[in-house]
């Protein structure tokens, strides 16, 4: 008797491949962490994969001394503001698309569907032109506004699909009790759609947190710098201090690593949001 899944028969080739890939995935991350804990002097002489003989947090201290908090705060401000705006406007739009049955609401939906296919990077020149014309160049608004706009299509799509599954009877009975659409939106639809709202929030937060092109093109001064851009600047400024550069890399990913540790399922759902079966 040979059972296929749940394997009595070990899958040797699959297993071997799985372990090889594990090494490929994990070794670079291990390298980043141990290197960031080395002294600069040890970095030049020790085996890169060895455990540091004189482990130190010097590299981290140096990164913090170089305005890391400013960049971190900018990233937090931009991400939180963007995600909050996306959730509110996308959810309202999804509500109209699902609840009203006019040709207009269908057309809105088609318009947003088109937006999913637009490669954001390709429109960077006109976005830059707009931001300059609005007098927003080199402000955090310059990052927030376009990020909201480009995330709306996929967010509306996810929320619409979820909202469609909320039974109509619930809305009807609330309406009979005299509830307005505004009340139904926030007291019925929002709690019902919480999983979808969480997914959308994670998906958009990841994209904004890691975004590089908008900050590169739309901001200039150091006090408006966000984390991905600061990494690139660290690379230039600390060119000979690899432990410090890698400490900055670790710190930039730390919030996501913590989030992953606490909510892996939501994180994975957020990562793959908007991707069909």
């Amino acid at each position, binding site marked *: 008797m040979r*059972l296929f899944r749940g*394997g009595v028969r070990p*899958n040797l080739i*699959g*297993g071997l491949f*799985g372990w090889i*890939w594990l090494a490929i*995935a994990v070794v*670079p*991350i291990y*390298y*980043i962490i141990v290197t960031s804990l080395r002294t600069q002097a040890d970095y030049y002489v020790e085996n890169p994969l060895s455990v540091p003989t004189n482990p130190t947090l010097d590299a981290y201290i140096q990164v913090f001394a170089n305005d890391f908090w400013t960049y971190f705060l900018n990233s937090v401000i931009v991400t939180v503001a963007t995600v909050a705006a996306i959730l509110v*406007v996308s959810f*309202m*739009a999804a*509500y*109209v698309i699902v609840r*009203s*049955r006019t040709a207009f*609401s269908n057309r*809105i939906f088609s318009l*947003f569907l088109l937006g999913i*296919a*637009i490669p*954001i990077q*390709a*429109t*960077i*020149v006109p976005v830059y*032109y*707009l931001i300059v014309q609005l007098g927003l160049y080199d402000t955090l608004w310059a990052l927030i506004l376009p990020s909201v*706009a480009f995330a709306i*299509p996929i967010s509306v799509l996810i929320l619409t699909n979820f909202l469609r*599954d909320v039974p109509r009877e619930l809305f*009807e009975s609330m*309406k009979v009790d005299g509830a307005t659409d505004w009340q139904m*939106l926030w007291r019925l639809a929002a709690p019902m759609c919480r*999983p979808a709202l969480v997914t959308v929030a994670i998906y958009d937060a990841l994209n904004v*947190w*890691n975004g*590089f*092109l908008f900050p*590169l*093109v739309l901001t200039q001064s150091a006090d408006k710098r966000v984390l*991905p851009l600061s*990494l690139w600047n660290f*690379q230039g400024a600390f060119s000979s201090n*690899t432990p410090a550069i890698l400490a900055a*890399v670790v710190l*930039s*990913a730390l919030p*996501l690593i913590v989030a*992953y540790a606490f909510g892996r399922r939501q994180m*994975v*759902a957020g*990562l*793959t949001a908007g*991707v*069909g*079966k």
Partner: protein
Amino acid sequence: MTNPIARRPAAGRVRKSGGRGVGAGPSAWYAAPALVFFGFFALVPLIGVFVLSFMNWDGLGELSLAGAGNWTRMLGNATTQHAIVLTLIMTVMCWVIQTPISLLLGVFMAGQQRYRAVLAVLYFLPLLFSATAVGIAFTALLDPNFGMSRAFGLDFLSRDFLGNPSLALPTIMVVIAWCFVPFHSLLYQGAARQIPASIYEAAMIDGASRVQNFFYITLPQLRNTIITSSTLMITGSLTYFDLIFVMTAGGPGNATRVLPLDMYLTGFRSYNMGGASVIGVILVVVGLLIAWLLNHVSGSSKMESDMEGAL
């Protein structure tokens, strides 16, 4: 992620067209904020990129009409032609490298090994680093003098991977694979888990080998996922910017100057915004074309299903 209220049928849903119930639906004004944002910062730039491709603008001064000059200049210059070729190579090669690995990894993870849960946690760690962070980390890791090469003492590892024009692009493609294989294997894992076990049981009774199972059951069942994943890969490679920018900035020479880098450098380094917009238009058109093709190949229901894959 399961919907607490109702499970959607797997096939495309047909919405009940019923009576309005009580009163009218919500006011269309609810969609206004989203429309304003999207219209102003996404649709306007989309039209704007076409308009700007026929304009002269240095990024600072006044706009002036260029006619088709930008188009003939951009499509006629060797750098942009080279960028088009590189982008094609990168798109094809990224697909060739990533798809088999992601597919095998995803199917492997969908199995039931005891240690799979631990592996899955570790496999997805690369997803937590931004492309910028990955690019910078790999730049250090690939350093010919002090990077990983010293860990193994192997001579062929101590080459200047990013400084050698013939090695730079392949190296970048490997790093991109490191970045994105976890994501695509997630998609395949989700899809492979949804293949009914009964199919495999039937095949087992017929004495099918594992290899036969893979080719005659798993692959055909994953057809839609392969299409989705490939589309994302292709559109991704078309617009891939940050990782290449921090690793090589398009160099050495123009060895890694793919279209998005060519666009950025033309516009924001050479102050030729019209020329950059030409490349922008090309990227928009190709992106829309691929999305349309995807829709065509797999039916529009694909675009409307979501979140049922990964979990």
